[in-house]
Every structure is written in structure tokens, then in C-alpha cells.
């Protein structure tokens, strides 16, 4: 145990933070996306260490299996990843450092406040998938339905954005004239 944290936790968090740093600092954009995938995997390992099996596996399924693929597709289809950036540090670095220091202070305050509040470290509750399902269907059914509506809207929006324009009679006649 180092500083009261287990070795596995230290290793996993080093992996996660290293992946996130690499995602911010690497030059090749696809390398950045792949390092972000390592960060997602590290987060999934952290969930699994806390015995949250469903959250951990859903993290892998959704983030690595779908979001990472989406990110690399977006990179490839929009700007092309062959041209590496040569500027790793932006010109407004002072403002960046100030804002990130502020966010870090806020998060550290929130974490230490919650640690001292839950001083009694009893055994972690064994949450089965069945309990999650029951909770989703009883007390959290409204967020579930809202998320479902949101996903449907996103799907319909994607189809509309990607749909080819329907041919109007005006454009058909102009095409006939060109031939």
C-alpha cells in the first residue's frame, strides 16, 4: 500500500493519466485517439476494481467499442490524419494553466470533502445487474425514457443529415438538358 492506496489502483491510475496526457500532447491525431482509448480502458479497470461490473463492462462496450471508433472515423473523414501538427503548445497557455488549476482545486476540495464525510469504510455493497435493472425500471424510469428519446432523436438527426437530397423536377430537367 502506497499512501493508503493499493498497488493496483496506483498502476491503473498511472495508465489512465498517461493515456490522457498522451492524448493531449501527441502530434499525430490518430495516435491521440488511440491513447484516449487507453484512458477509457484505464477508467474501465478502475470501475472493475470497485466491483462495479456493469459500469466497467458498459464503459468498454460503449466507449472503446463505439466512441473511440467514432472519433477515429471523424478524424479520417474530416481532416485526414497524415499531416502532423507541429505546435504542441498554444499561445494562450497562461489562461489554460489558470483555468486548469482552478478546476483541479475544485475537484480536490470535492473529493476530500466526500472522503471525510464517509469516514466509515464498510464493505462495498454487492450490486448485481438485476438490482440495476430493477432500479432503472422503478425509481429511475424517467431518466431512462428521456435518454431513450434523446437517442432516437440523435438517430433520426443522423439519418436526416446523411440522407441524399431528394430530386426535385427542376433539377431533373436541368440534368436532362446537360445530357
Amino acid at each position, binding site marked *: 500500500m502506497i499512501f493508503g492506496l493499493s498497488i493496483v489502483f496506483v498502476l491503473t491510475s498511472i495508465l489512465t493519466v498517461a493515456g490522457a496526457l498522451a492524448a493531449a500532447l501527441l502530434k499525430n491525431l490518430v495516435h491521440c485517439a488511440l491513447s484516449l482509448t487507453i484512458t477509457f480502458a484505464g477508467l474501465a479497470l478502475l470501475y472493475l476494481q470497485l466491483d462495479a461490473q456493469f459500469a466497467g463492462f458498459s464503459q*468498454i*462496450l460503449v466507449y472503446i467499442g463505439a466512441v473511440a*471508433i467514432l472519433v477515429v*472515423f471523424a478524424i479520417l473523414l474530416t481532416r485526414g490524419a497524415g499531416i502532423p501538427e507541429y505546435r504542441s503548445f498554444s499561445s494562450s497557455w497562461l489562461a489554460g494553466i489558470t483555468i486548469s488549476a482552478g478546476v483541479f482545486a475544485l475537484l480536490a476540495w470535492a473529493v476530500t470533502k466526500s472522503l471525510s464525510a464517509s469516514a466509515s469504510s464498510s464493505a462495498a455493497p454487492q450490486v448485481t*445487474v438485476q438490482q440495476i435493472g430493477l432500479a432503472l425500471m422503478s425509481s429511475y424510469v424517467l431518466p431512462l425514457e428521456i435518454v431513450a428519446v434523446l437517442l432516437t432523436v440523435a438517430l433520426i438527426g443522423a439519418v436526416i443529415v446523411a440522407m441524399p437530397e431528394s430530386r426535385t423536377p427542376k433539377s431533373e430537367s436541368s440534368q436532362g438538358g446537360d445530357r
Partner: protein
Amino acid sequence: MSQSSQLWANPVWTNLDQIFVLLQHWVEGFFPVWLQPAVGTVLGVIAIVAAFPGIFALTTVLERKGLGRMQNRLGPNRVGPFGILQPVADGIKSLTKEDIVPLTADGVVHFLAPVVLVIAVFLGFAVLPVGRNMVLTNLDAGLLFFFAIGASTELSVFMAGWSSRNKYSLLGAMRAVAQMISYEVPLLLSSVVAVMITGSLSTVKIVEAQSGFTGIFPHWYVFTPWGFAGFVLFVIAALAETNRSPFDLPEGESELVAGYFTEYSGFKFALFFLGEYLGMFSIAGFAITLFLGGWGAPLSVLEIIPSWAWFFAKLLCAIFFFIWLRGTLPRLRQDQLMNFAWKFMLPMSLLNLLVAGAWRFLGDGWLRWIVCSAVLLLAYGLLGRVLMRHQRLGARSYRYAD
């Protein structure tokens, strides 16, 4: 097990059924108590790493012989009797071939792509119940684990295609990823029906729920209307997920050289090949677990044959079915593939969920059989006609070789 035959209670057959578990306990006995769980896990891993690549070696020669016979030719017959030692020759060849990496290829990603694939595929075997009490880890969310790991294989396909800096590789990788993502939705939805009726995501519980018998007939989910539809949808989606014929456009030899593994030679190509076939085995294993009763015997009188023997027999039948399909069906075009996934399989699998729910709540009896079968058959006919009517399909024509 209250309805099994008397023969099964004989300790000889019980020991044969549990022979690998007993072997594991015997080896564990040589180690101190605090080390025993680790040793047991290591033994299980060794068994998986030995057994499934062994089946892979057998499958390569079976496939080439089987395809050869279906195409009216002999297949490999030089190495060993009936070509049975061909995998040995293939292994030696792939180990001694020069490993060529293109000059402009992205070295690190090019190296890591087959590694990620093989890791992801081997991880998937951890929750597969190969026999009674023979599963590496009995996770509470075992099925979710398998699908999560399967989603990671798409990433390795993309890495392989992009890092080769080759038009054909990138094109093959894009097609493969689009196909895998499209078919992942029907794959998951068609497996959810088995989870719904069992009430658990644990693969061990799903197999145990199918291990009862009425008379001599088993309670496998495939013998119910929703189970049969779910099984068919799962197998089609599994074929597409593993880029297997007739969904093998990403590696269509006549179109894309070799798709996303064009620039891989020697052992890395062998690793990709291994990863693809092992993925096929694990997804076939899950189809067997979810719908075909896992390690259960098909008739209660046949329960004397060990559970692991039944599992591997079913797995071999599934492999033979995949090889048969490869030799029979022509390749689907990309747009036909996508239309099929989004316009037919997704509505059918959603409807299957409703039908499974209706099955559960209609209660025992002949009514639920009739209602569920009628709804599924009607939907199959309507979806086939209505949603696919823009495909200009003419009457079927036959041409025979003279």
C-alpha cells in the same frame, strides 16, 4: 437433474464428466492453500490456450478439405495422410517468413494491431462454459463482458487498416468496421431474449436454465419460437461480426487484395488469421451457450456422454456449418449487407424481444406457441416483402455447367 437417466448417477460417468475439474484440483493440491486459486486459474488459462488454437489448427485443414470437396477438388493432400498435417506446415512457413513492414507505415500501431486482436479474442473465452463446472470465471455480467471485448476487436481492425498506409487496407478496414458496427446491434438484441427469459447475464446460469428435460426432449431455447428466431438472427449477425462468408467483403480476395491485412506477412498474418478464427469459435460457443443448451445433451438418455464432449461436438457442428456456408453462398455487396442489417435484422430482433415478453406472460400452454409463431412468421413475411421492395429482384434463374 431430477429427470436424468439412472445411468448418469453412476460415479464412473460423473468422474468422466468432471475429469478436468478433478485434474485441476489434483494439481492444485501440490501447492499451499493461499496459492491454490491462482494455480487453478493458471491451469484454466493453459487449457484454453492449448485447446482452442488446437481446434484452430484442425479447422484450417478441415476448411480447406471441406471447401475443396464442395468445389469438386481435393484440397491439401500432400502433408501427412489426407493432408492432416497441413497446419504444421503452415505454422512452420509463417514462423520462418520474413516480416515485411512498409517504410511509411506507422510502426507502433502496425505492430500492436494483431496483438490487440489476439488479446481481445482470448479474453472472450474466459466466460464460456465449456462443461459442467468448467468455466474460467463465473462473472455476474458474463455476457456483457463478452460483447464488450468483442467490440474491442473492431479497434484492432481499424488500427491494422490505417497503419498500413495502403488504399486497399484502409478501404477494407472502413468496410469491415462499418459492417461490424452495423451487425453488433442485431447481435446484442437477439441475445437479449435469452437473458430476458433466464433472468441473468451470467453464462453459467443461462446454460443451467436450459438443462432440464420434459420427457426426453431438452429445454433448449432454440426449440421455442422466439429462441429459434433469436438463434437465426444471432448466427447471421455472428457471421457478419467475424467477417465470414457471405459477409466477407472486407477481405474479398478478388477486390481488395486481402483487405485490412494486406501489408502483414509472416507471423503477424498468422496472428490475424488465428484471431479471426478464434473469434469465430468464441461467438459460435456463445450461440451454443445462449440457444443450443451449452453443454447439455440433446436427449436425456444421452446424458452419460460427458458435458464437455457435447459442447465440443456442437462446436464442431457449428464450424462445419460455417464452412458449408462459405462454400455455398456468394458474397454480399456492401449496400445489400447494410440494408439487410438495418432494415430487416434490427426490426426482427426488436420484434423478437416483444414476442419473448409475450411468451413469458401468456403462461404455459399451446396458446403462446401459436401466438408467438404466428407473429414471427407474419413479421418475417411482411418485412421481407415491404421493406425490401425497392431492391430490384427478378425471378430466380439457374445456369448449369455443361
